[in-house]
């Protein structure tokens, strides 16, 4: 709690003391954003979960493409370091910006997004004991297809960006095990530290982010029977930095702190690193 208070205080101070003549950035790392990619722009990304003790599918290779100036295709292949199960899900996603209020160095935008998660190595789980407290996205994703979609609102005001997103995840079991559907919501903040004043595309950018995600999970099921000791609430708080070189290469690192109901038994902290390359 003390940690959260401190973080909120720092974010508030950054907002108050932000000069008004500098651009802002809203290139959030772990949140959907309301801005879309430029038409025909291609982005490849590699996101590595740095916690060796956690076997999960949060590492991914991503590919984004600007279909139009308002419609972006976002796809990922998840992978892990577990022998024999390196390939995780395939995530096919889209983002459509349906509202824009753009002004000089300001925008308020809204987008709708949708994703289909396809399991690549489905299992037919019969033992419920391993799955009672598990959450989709933490382990064994390949048990379920997932459809999720939602809305995101981004407000940019000079060097400060705020992002609010809400989504719903619906799971379709491949076998008899079904993860609980969940609602997810987040409020995130971004702040441009450098450059103080843009001169050229070669200026190195430094952004810092505070992202929060709240989850409410329904209980898991096997053969339609609800598993006790499953479902519940989880909160993730992420502190991240983002360096941008030549306006084309993004290098990101972050720390994710999780707070979850005891029922979920997943209080794991994660360090991650990510690199992205924009083709124009």
């Amino acid at each position: 709690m003390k940690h959260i208070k401190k973080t909120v205080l720092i974010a508030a101070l950054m907002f108050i003391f932000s000069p008004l003549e500098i651009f802002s950035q809203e290139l959030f790392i772990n949140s959907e954003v309301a801005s879309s990619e430029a038409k025909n722009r291609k982005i490849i990304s590699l996101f590595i979960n740095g916690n060796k003790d956690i076997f999960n599918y949060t590492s991914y290779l991503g590919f984004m493409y600007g279909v139009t100036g308002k419609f972006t295709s976002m796809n990922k292949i998840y992978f892990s370091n577990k022998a024999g199960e390196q390939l995780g899900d395939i995530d096919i996603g889209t983002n459509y910006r349906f509202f824009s209020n753009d002004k000089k160095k300001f925008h308020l935008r809204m987008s709708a997004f949708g994703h289909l998660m396809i399991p690549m190595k489905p299992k037919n789980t019969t033992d419920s004991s391993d799955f009672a407290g598990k959450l989709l996205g933490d382990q064994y994703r390949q048990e379920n297809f997932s459809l999720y979609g939602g809305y995101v609102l981004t407000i940019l005001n000079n060097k400060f960006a705020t992002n609010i997103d809400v989504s719903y995840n619906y799971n379709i079991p491949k076998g008899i095990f079904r993860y609980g559907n969940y609602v997810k919501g987040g409020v995130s903040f971004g702040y441009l530290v450098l450059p103080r004043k843009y001169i050229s595309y070669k200026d190195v950018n430094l952004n810092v982010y505070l992202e929060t995600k709240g989850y409410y999970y329904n209980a898991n099921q096997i053969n339609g029977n609800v598993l006790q000791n499953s479902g519940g609430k989880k909160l993730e708080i992420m502190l991240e930095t983002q360096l941008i070189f030549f306006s084309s290469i993004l290098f990101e690192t972050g720390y994710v702190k999780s707070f979850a109901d005891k029922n979920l038994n997943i209080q794991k902290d994660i360090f991650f690193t990510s690199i992205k390359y924009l083709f124009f």
Partner: protein
Amino acid sequence: MKTKLILITLLVFFTYIKSFAQVKEINISVDGFTCSLCAKGVEGQFKALDFVSKVRTNLEAASFDLWFKPGNQIKIEKIRSAVDDGGFSVGAINVDAEGTLVNSAGNYSLKTGNSPDLRLINVESSFNDGDRVTIKGSLTSSYSVSVSSIKKI
């Protein structure tokens, strides 16, 4: 020899006339523009236009200067679409052009040679049909320019 000289003189003269009459430069400011990555996306859309020869980006002002290939027609709608494709919104568009003034019952337009005729707003009545002028102003619609400065050449 005399005939050759006359031909060369005429060629130079008409080449001069053609290059004289043109939209020379457009400055377009872009709204919602937030970062150098965003600017690069918009710049890429401008560079893909077949009539644009050069783009200069002002990151701090969130604006772009466009120059044009000789002999190509400038299409304002395509410039606007390029901003949309870049993911942002068009702010002000300022035009710097030279051409021949046409006065039709007090309504002025400018023949430029590399764009449809520009309808001019706010032109003093002291200008005559056929005057060669240079103008600066902002676009109010596709090819209408609210003139801020006009000079005879």
